């Protein structure tokens, strides 16, 4: 990954972050657009969870990783602390792989 790509991603990201704090007094986004943008953020994050849990390259990631992520989902609904969620998700995946599950 070339440095210019990292810099482009960084510059664009900073512009997204800075626009609100600088422009919020001069420009008001319409309520409908704000609502759509917040729905879009959640939809993108869930899609990122789904694709990074289930796929690797252009194929299926195997069962061990989605099983770990499923454990994370159950622990989240039970209101477990964040570090425990991450450790048990990775541990589930690691143990399943140790047992020969792809």
């Amino acid at each position, binding site marked *: *990954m*070339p*440095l*210019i790509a*990292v*810099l482009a*991603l*960084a510059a*664009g*990201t*900073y512009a*997204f*972050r*800075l*626009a*609100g*704090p600088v422009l*919020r007094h001069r420009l008001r986004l319409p309520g*409908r657009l*704000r*609502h*759509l*943008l*917040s*729905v*879009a*953020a*959640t*939809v*993108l*994050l*869930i*899609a*990122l969870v*789904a*694709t*990074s*849990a289930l796929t*690797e*390259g*252009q194929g299926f*990631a195997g069962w*061990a*990783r989605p099983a*770990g*992520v499923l454990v*994370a*989902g159950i622990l*989240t*609904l039970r209101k477990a602390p964040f*570090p425990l*969620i*991450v450790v048990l*998700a*990775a*541990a*589930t*995946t*690691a143990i399943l792989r*140790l047992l020969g599950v792809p």
Partner: protein
Amino acid sequence: MHSLWRTLNRGTLRDIALVCLADAMVGAAFGAIAVSGGLPAWVPVVMSLLVFAGGAQFAAVGVVLSGGAPIAAVAAGLVLNARLLPFGFAIGDVLGGRWWTRLTGAHLMTDEAVAFVLRDGDPRRRHAAFWACGLGLFVSWNAAVVLGALAGRGIGDTGALGLDAAFPAVLLALVLPSLTERNARTATLRRACLLGGVVAVAATPFLPAGLPVLLALTGLVLAVRTPSGAEVPCP
């Protein structure tokens, strides 16, 4: 800094510390996965300092490691980070009025910091929570990425440790609570997420890396059709 600790209560400080610890684990996983996948160590380290957005970093590195073009990696990361735009309009007041606090604070804006700000209505506590979470995460995330990148050379197979599950796990832990409320607005959001997720996974075998996640935005058609503009926004 001193007034930060006095303004925030113990529970909020503990929660911020726990989120920093969890994200540090994910940061270490990010550094290790990038380096063991074949990228030079400076890539995850410099990217974390300058981009400082876990989702976009994983997405960009994922695109590159699966053979995608750098331009596709940048596009995937930027589309994910476009959510920071509405965040900035929603919580821009907590950065303070001086230009240099706005320039610094903007870089520290993350999903986690925004979530902590939205938990509280009091302006002083919102301000303190933002800076405590923002600074805490910046230090812990970047330190962890460096450690992960150094360890990544030694770890031949990050998969054996289940590190690839850490990122989707923490992301799910952040988003899931916002999908569990029982009201019409959340029900619409759930349907949009379900459609978007199914479309993204179904498109993965056929499209270059990075594009399937963008295609998830088709889920928005379910949110457009509801007359949400007429609703009174929740405080």
